[in-house]
């Protein structure tokens, strides 16, 4: 746009006026800044000079002691022990290489840790102390302290470090802590300043992670006088922080140890639950690993051996693993049919070894067939065809609803990592997730716990506890926090017909105690410990050859669930042995041993076992006794 000369003059004048105005304002502001400087630096100088002197007082955060973790008997599972380390602060050290060289004459330096520390020093702010030697002995520490004047920026540090007294036994339940990583910091909005302390440990997995808020505690502060080079001269005062809350588990460490030891090197999981209160008495997952390895950072080789193991030791199979429940699901199908009034316990179906459903042949595990089968016999001998018939008449919606009522397909929020929710499939679910319509064959598969049905060992234990009591038992892992009792999981009555439940329990009793029961080999003899259970063998892939002849990875999962004593249930147990082939051969014996151990609170007498097994059991008891933890030196709760 062309502008006239007069407009130009006019605008020039306007700009000049306005900019002189703004300029004047700027002069005023600069004057104000100068005045403020004068006020601070000249008038109040003495006061601030005094404060600067006082500023030789350094205020620092005191990390609180993390809450301890105990088992139900008061045995400590996770404690804090003192550990010594040596840090170097780059800004104070001056020549890093020279400092390290001097230090290495006093302390043995681990090259890997040192290389990491040097890298950290490049990356982090210069005033952050970086650890160059970890887990040093008291002697080495005092040698460094004695030579302190020659080592600027080098500081010996005492810190609390987590220690897991029972090592692998509780690794999946309690989890472990580790140094705060950048990833951790990134996930938290407005992180506690504590987390920025070097080497501060937070829960990474398991209860340690899920109950971080209870366990961490509150930081204290410490005021220390420092000299001109920043070295601490004396402590002036300190405000102690608040220790984290102590957490007591419902788990019994002796039983937990037995469970882990009994599973041994199998890839297995076992859950023991108190049916009256929902207390989890043991949650085992095998194989396990030593959580102490992770506390100060695990070596690459160790970590690799854990991740590459096909038995997956890092996974807490008890709550994270989900398996087709196989025949242990039959109680669900049966109860659903009974409650819906479709069959009575006396009604029989004829099993000829298979059933044809929509032109597809569904086999019973017993190819010759069972003949006429009623409810109790169907459970006792685990007839599949009986359940195919039930499924056709009851429908998947009823079966799924019953599964959920019994605690399958829903997540039980125990404070462990990645608790799985399993699956109780419905028509809707299949439509939504698979985009396909539900077919009759799916119901037939589901009736015997195959197909889409998935359950974790924890869920199977809850299911069994609910069958045993008729109440909506909820699992409880934490007994007390700071001595305060947590709500139990006894649960409300499920509203199931007691008569129907009694029939199911009778069937489970016969599975173990009847001469033709599938788990007869795993019975106990005395009246006080009678076991009622159900075997399960769930297919991993379809195959024609014998289970033991295929690759380990392709073998069937072995399952067993039971409660005991039969006439007055106290506990429920679920055992899953991955690729164990048969529920009756691989899982039931483990479940029986765990049940007896839990009921007796110690090794059961050999008289509980059928005479033919006693020799083998004696040896086994001896072997497992050797793996028991030492009795605690101080038995009482802190």
């Amino acid at each position, binding site marked *: 746009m062309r502008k006239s000369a007069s407009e*130009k003059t006019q605008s020039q004048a*306007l700009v000049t006026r*306005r900019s002189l105005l*703004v300029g004047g304002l700027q002069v005023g502001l600069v004057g104000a*800044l100068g005045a403020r400087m004068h006020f*601070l630096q000249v008038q*109040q*100088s003495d006061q601030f000079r005094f404060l600067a002197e006082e500023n030789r007082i350094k205020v620092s955060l005191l990390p609180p002691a993390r809450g301890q973790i105990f088992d139900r008997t008061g045995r400590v599972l996770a404690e804090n022990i003192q550990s010594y380390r040596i840090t170097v602060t780059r800004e104070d050290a001056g020549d890093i290489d020279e400092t390290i060289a001097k230090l290495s004459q006093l302390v043995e330096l681990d090259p890997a840790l040192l290389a990491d520390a040097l890298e950290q020093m490049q990356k982090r702010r210069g005033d952050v102390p970086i650890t160059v030697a970890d887990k040093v002995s008291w002697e080495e520490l005092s040698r460094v302290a004695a030579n302190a004047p020659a080592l600027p920026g080098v500081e010996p540090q005492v810190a609390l470090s987590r220690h897991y007294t029972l090592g692998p036994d509780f690794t999946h339940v309690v989890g472990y802590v580790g140094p705060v990583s950048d990833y951790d910091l990134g996930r938290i909005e407005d992180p506690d300043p504590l987390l920025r302390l070097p080497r501060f440990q937070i829960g990474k997995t398991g209860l340690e992670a899920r109950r971080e808020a209870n366990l961490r505690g509150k930081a204290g502060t410490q005021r220390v006088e420092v000299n001109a080079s920043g070295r601490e001269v004396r402590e002036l005062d300190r405000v102690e922080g608040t220790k984290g809350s102590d957490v007591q588990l419902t788990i019994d460490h002796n039983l937990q140890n037995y469970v882990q030891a009994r599973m041994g090197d199998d890839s297995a999981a076992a859950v023991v639950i108190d049916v009256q209160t929902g207390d989890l008495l043991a949650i085992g997952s095998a194989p396990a690993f030593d959580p102490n390895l992770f506390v100060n950072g695990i070596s690459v080789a160790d970590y690799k051996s854990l991740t590459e193991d096909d038995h997956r030791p890092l996974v807490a199979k008890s709550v994270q693993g989900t398996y087709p429940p196989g025949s242990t699901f039959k109680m669900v199908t049966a109860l659903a049919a009974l409650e819906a009034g479709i069959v009575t316990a006396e009604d029989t179906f004829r099993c000829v070894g298979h059933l044809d459903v929509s032109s597809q042949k569904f086999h019973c595990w017993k190819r010759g067939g069972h003949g006429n089968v009623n409810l109790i016999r169907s459970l006792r001998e685990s007839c599949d065809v009986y359940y195919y018939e039930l499924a056709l008449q009851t429908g998947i919606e009823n079966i799924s609803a019953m599964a959920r009522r019994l605690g399958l397909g829903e997540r039980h929020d125990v404070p462990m990592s990645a608790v799985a929710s399993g699956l109780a499939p419905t028509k809707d679910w299949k439509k939504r997730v698979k985009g396909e319509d539900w077919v009759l064959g799916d119901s037939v598969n589901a009736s015997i716990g195959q197909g889409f049905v998935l359950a974790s060992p924890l869920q199977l234990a809850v299911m069994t506890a609910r069958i045993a009591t008729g109440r909506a038992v909820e699992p409880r892992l934490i007994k007390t926090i700071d001595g305060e009792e947590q709500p139990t999981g006894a649960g409300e009555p499920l509203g199931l017909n007691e008569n129907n439940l009694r029939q199911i329990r009778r069937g489970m009793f016969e599975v173990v105690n009847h001469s033709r029961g599938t788990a007869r080999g795993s019975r106990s003899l005395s009246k006080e410990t009678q076991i009622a259970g159900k075997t399960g063998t769930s297919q991993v892939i379809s195959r024609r050859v014998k289970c033991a002849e295929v690759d380990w990875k392709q073998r069937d999962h072995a399952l067993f669930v039971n409660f005991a004593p039969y006439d007055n249930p106290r506990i429920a147990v679920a055992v899953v042995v991955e690729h164990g082939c048969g529920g009756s051969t691989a899982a039931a014996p483990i479940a029986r041993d765990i049940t007896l151990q839990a009921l007796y609170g110690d090794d059961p007498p050999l008289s509980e076992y059928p005479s033919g097994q006693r020799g083998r059991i004696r040896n086994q008891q001896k072997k497992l006794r050797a793996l028991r933890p030492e009795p605690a030196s101080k038995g009482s709760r802190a």
Partner: protein
Amino acid sequence: MSYLEYNIKFVPTGPRKFLYLNWPLALLLAAVASVGFLMLYSVAGGDISRWAEPQMKRFGVGFILMIFVAMVPIYFWRNISAVAYGVSLMLLVAVELFGDVGMGAQRWINLGFMRLQPSELMKITLVMLLAAYYDWLPLKKISHPLWVAIPVALILVPTALVLRQPDLGTAILLLTGGGALMFMAGVHWAYFLAVISSGVGLLVAVFESRGTTWQLLNNYQYKRIDTFLDPAADPLNAGYHITQSKIALGSGGWTGRGFMQGTQSRLNFLPEKHTDFIFTTLSEEFGFVGAITLLTLYALIIMFCISSALSNSNRYGQLLTLGIAMAFFLFFSVNMAMVMGLIPVVGVPLPLISYGGSAMLVLMIAFGLVQSAHVHKPR
């Protein structure tokens, strides 16, 4: 204007341009930057390679860049103003989408060889575009509501984007800098009165909204305001910066504690001592005399800019120079006011002194534009 005056005007061309550079201004910039090198050397505890050396290299590159920009005719810069603004706006959106996250705020784009802060670029390109806009707009339309709404939108869009990062400091600079340019261009003063009074209203709203569902600022921003109002309340965490910074400043006295003798800086009581809080180290070590000297250098830079602008009859060059001078003024005054506890901590670096690459380069480019306006003004 008379025929005569048109006749005597000329614009230098070719290598002669070099002689017409605003050399006193360039010298002042170098002087301020040198103060910066000295301070960076000091806060690194006598280590030149840590901050001082990279900063010198950047200033060197920046200085060459400035001369290069100055040699390019001012009309070229005017013509690309809109494009420059558009590119910075796109970069700002890009940070929003895939920027790196540093210090809890999303501010950078990683170019591989350097990390670019588009918000830095925006401070300059916004001034360029507004200057070009008022160069083009006839004077009689200048206060028409529609022609006022356009620059307001041009200011508010990048401000909103920067606020989302969140970078309150830059947002305030864009808003005030842009507004000041509109004022100097001649928009009717009633608009500014209205904005200022509604701004006061908004301030009240910000405080009233705290804790309610329509809370206007982030909790950390409220915390900073709290800290500002009462730094003693939380001396360990949020108030730490201010309390320590004031102690460092105050303990400097008339002549300071001597080069590299500041205990506050030495003992690591000062946070961000090589970036936002570097002024405290200067004040501690060189005292009131040192601080006033720096303030005077800054004021001289502003004065040279304004005097160059007032004698410039090219409206674009004039407004551009005034706008950049205003932005520069805001930079250092906000930073100084912040470390002296006059305003809340908003995270604005001290121009030409604080350690930081993109801020330095962008600033030198800006002064390149000022130089270009100076060289190419009709004489």
